[in-house]
């Protein structure tokens, strides 16, 4: 049986961010990972050009095995993209996760969910970090390091600058499309006069390159974001693995599915399978970065904990936004992730956050299925309407969810999802506020289009083993070490004590970096 110093489980944003400080300090690190890799090449022509000329487009739009149709009920178009099949495949089955009224999504791929994320990045403010068991200043250095490493746009001073808090280290903005440009101009024109103080809008800050960065190319706005970026403009931690492998003290074992972690002879024994063969590796320290759901499963098993633990996820909604002034606008391929973002203030000091996206890079069938029209006339309508429409989403804070995670008798993880009782009234309030605010900037939230998503559909999972100053069983300390399990750390969303209505992956990365830097000190102190 092999024995290692430090094992990191998972190669997603948390795992890679935890790996860098340790590896760069010279500490020996072994990374275990599901290791799945893409099987399809990504489209490299402008989306609308491929669509109007490629006779084989169905292969990447639907998939040769009809992946898009197999997942037609999935909550996100990304779940239907054949090029991203490898990202989501077999996650629930392999990890024995069952969900009830909850959308549980994870990944066994190299880079985890960062292969298919929305690239939204934001710092947590001092107020949002107040429940974290350390000074907010401790995160500053990590936020800066991560921003510079992954490449973030846009450094554009506007009403959302404070919300995102990254402009100092960010790259130039990716150009907006016509619709977003119109909205932005309208907002800036009317901001001082009529737009509600409860509504703020500005450029979305995303981990997508506005200029070339460490071998990755800047965004060329082909509009293929939904299927993946052939220029690697969108950040994915899968591209970090080769860089980490250039360090001799880093080793990477793909295809290793961790089933359990047990304490044995003062060491941690990581049990799993590699190519269907059972394998065990021991280590002095194990850092869990397998994503909130899998990390939670492994910790609960290690603790022999049969009681349920809370799970945060952000209640979400989506809506269609129409800009009447731009009816008849010509469709152009454009950046497909969030272009503008907004924050709203609701009653009871609840805030919301959302982004707006171009519809030109999304198949029309994604919309027409939800239209209260006969299919034939729904297509007729969208053919003429959609070029002047945007799609928007909204996130509310994770504390408004009421999800619970339980280890069942057969050692499978059961997730029971739900929203707090106030969510529906808050969503109604948010809907009214968005209708009003967007109307003031010349856009209409389409009637009946504001739809609340299923619990877990946000894929912002967090808070199962929150960091506390004085942790109890079922909690972690400021280093992410699980109470009662010395040497077992968790650095992904599981240890976040708070999940505000904001992109959370960036803070997970910064927190993993912070914990890892402190581990570096203790590691070299011990040696």
């Amino acid at each position: 049986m092999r024995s290692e110093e430090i094992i990191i489980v998972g190669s997603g944003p948390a795992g890679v961010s935890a790996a860098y400080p340790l590896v760069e300090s010279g500490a020996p690190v072994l990374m275990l990972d599901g290791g799945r890799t893409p099987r399809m090449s990504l489209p490299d022509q402008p989306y609308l050009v491929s669509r109007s000329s490629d006779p084989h487009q169905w292969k990447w739009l639907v998939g040769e095995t009809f992946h898009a149709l197999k997942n037609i009920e999935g909550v996100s178009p990304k779940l239907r993209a054949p090029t991203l099949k490898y990202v989501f495949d077999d996650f629930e089955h392999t990890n024995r996760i069952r969900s009830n009224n909850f959308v549980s999504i994870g990944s066994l791929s190299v880079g985890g969910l960062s292969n298919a994320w929305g690239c939204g990045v934001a710092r947590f403010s001092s107020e949002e970090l107040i429940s974290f068991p350390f000074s907010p200043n401790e995160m500053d250095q990590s936020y800066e390091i991560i921003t510079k490493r992954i490449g973030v746009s846009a450094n554009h001073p506007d009403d959302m600058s404070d919300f995102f808090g990254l402009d100092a280290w960010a790259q130039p903005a990716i150009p907006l499309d016509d619709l977003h440009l119109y909205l932005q101009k309208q907002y800036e024109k009317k901001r001082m006069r009529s737009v509600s103080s409860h509504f703020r809008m500005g450029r979305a800050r995303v981990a997508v390159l506005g200029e070339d960065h460490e071998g990755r190319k800047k965004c060329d706005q082909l509009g293929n974001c939904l299927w993946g970026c052939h220029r690697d403009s969108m950040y994915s931690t899968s591209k970090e693995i080769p860089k980490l492998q250039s360090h001799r003290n880093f080793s990477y074992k793909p295809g290793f599915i961790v089933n359990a972690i047990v304490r044995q002879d003062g060491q941690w024994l990581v049990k799993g399978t590699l190519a269907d063969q059972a394998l065990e590796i021991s280590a002095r320290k194990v850092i869990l970065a397998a994503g909130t759901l899998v990390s939670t499963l492994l910790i609960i098993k290690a603790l022999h904990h049969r009681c349920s633990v809370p799970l945060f996820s952000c209640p979400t909604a989506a809506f269609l936004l129409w800009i009447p002034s731009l009816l008849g606008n010509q469709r152009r391929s454009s950046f497909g992730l969030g272009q503008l973002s907004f924050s709203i203030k609701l009653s009871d000091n609840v805030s919301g956050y959302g982004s707006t996206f171009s519809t030109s890079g999304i198949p029309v069938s994604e919309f027409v299925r939800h239209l209260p029209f006969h299919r034939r006339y729904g297509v007729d309508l969208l053919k003429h309407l959609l070029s002047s429409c945007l799609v928007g989403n909204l996130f509310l804070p994770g504390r408004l969810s009421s999800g619970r995670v339980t280890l069942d008798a057969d050692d499978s993880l059961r997730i029971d999802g739900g929203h707090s009782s106030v969510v529906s009234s808050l969503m109604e309030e948010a809907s009214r506020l968005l209708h009003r605010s967007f109307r003031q900037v010349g856009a209409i939230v389409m009637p009946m289009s504001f739809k609340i998503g299923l619990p877990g559909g946000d894929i912002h999972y967090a808070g199962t083993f929150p960091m506390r100053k004085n942790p109890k069983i079922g909690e972690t300390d400021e280093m992410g070490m699980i109470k009662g399990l010395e040497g077992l750390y968790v650095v992904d969303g599981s240890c976040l004590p708070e999940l505000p209505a904001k992109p959370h992956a960036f803070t997970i990365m910064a927190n993993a970096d912070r914990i890892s830097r402190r581990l570096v000190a203790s590691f070299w102190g011990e040696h």
Partner: protein
Amino acid sequence: MKIVLTGASGYIGTRFSSFAGLRGHTVVAMGRKFVSHCSAWIPFDLQSAAPIFLPEGTEFLVHMASENSETNGETAENEIRSAKKLLAVARQSGVKFLFLSSQTAREDAPTLYGRTKWKIEQEVLLSGGWIVRPGQVFGGKEHGMFGRLVGLVRRWPFLPAFVPCPKIQPIHVDDLVFELFRIIENTEGFPPLSLLGSPCPVTFTQFLKGIATGRIRRYRWFIPVPSFFVRVFLFFIGKRLRGLLGLESLMSLFSLPYMDTLSTFRHSNISLRSLSAGMHPSGDDRKRRLLMEARTLFVYVLRNRPNGSLLRRYVRVVSELRGGRPLGIPRWACQFPAALAVFESPIFLNAQGGTEFLWRLNAATVLMEATVLGVSRFIGNRDKNHLAFSFFGIGFAILGEMFWRAMSWIVAPILRYLLFFRWKF
């Protein structure tokens, strides 16, 4: 199992030999003509008095050979004598015996053919063998009576529709052969006499229409002809002339007894393919109906004819992901796909099969959008996009929607509650 088969070159015998190979059996043909598709051939003639020998290792003797035409008293007697010889040699060798009889078989049958079959049946029962009486066999290659009827429908644009129309109980040749093998492979589980045919008889006219639409794909006119006059005519021309004109089968048709096949089905738990499915040369029209369904859905949404590859892709999707059963979109909707809007009303969407219809409509939408043709339909010609074009396009869509909402409101309840339309799911 080594099976000796008489009538191996006939309509049913040919399919039987092919199936036997697939199921791992060896068939030795006994007949007048050499049969290449069997492993061996033994000369045999129903009219011959020559002795009969069975090859070593024979486990089953299946007797299908029959004098279908030019049956007279002498040939019928010879046929019965040959059957007795076969039974005797089988009994001596300890070989099991199965006789393929006819729906016309009965003691007082109006035709010599039916009476001959009945007499042979009695001998088989005495010897402890098994008998199968099939209804009207159809499908597969155009041989036997089925082949004659197909030829008739192919040649004649006008066909008689007898009033009242005699009813037949069709069975596809492959279903019949499949059931024969079930008996052969497990004789203990079957009674001596099995009646095989559709438990729901169809009129002879429906059968001919089935050939016209499902087999030769031609429209045929059916002229009502009173059965009474035909029967009087057949009576007056006499047996000899009937035989010469080949009208003996008509006599059988008018006096065909009903077979209670339900008891056989209950016993052996078989299901027969439908007339429309079996009429297709492949023996299954599911693919054709799925192609029709695909075409209807695509034309409904696309407002244009889809190409063949898109249709085939849809069939693959339904076959691989949804079990491959057609929805059963009515024929009038296939001819007027815009009317599918009626089925998008809650009355049908919330009824049984509504979810499946919606899934397929969604699948068809996704598939058709992922084509170059679909791009112009879903996204439009980007150069043509301007305010007036979009404005009128939206207005047209809203008007169309309003019209079909009103139509659905009127037509959907009529279809559902008065005409009892249901999805076949």
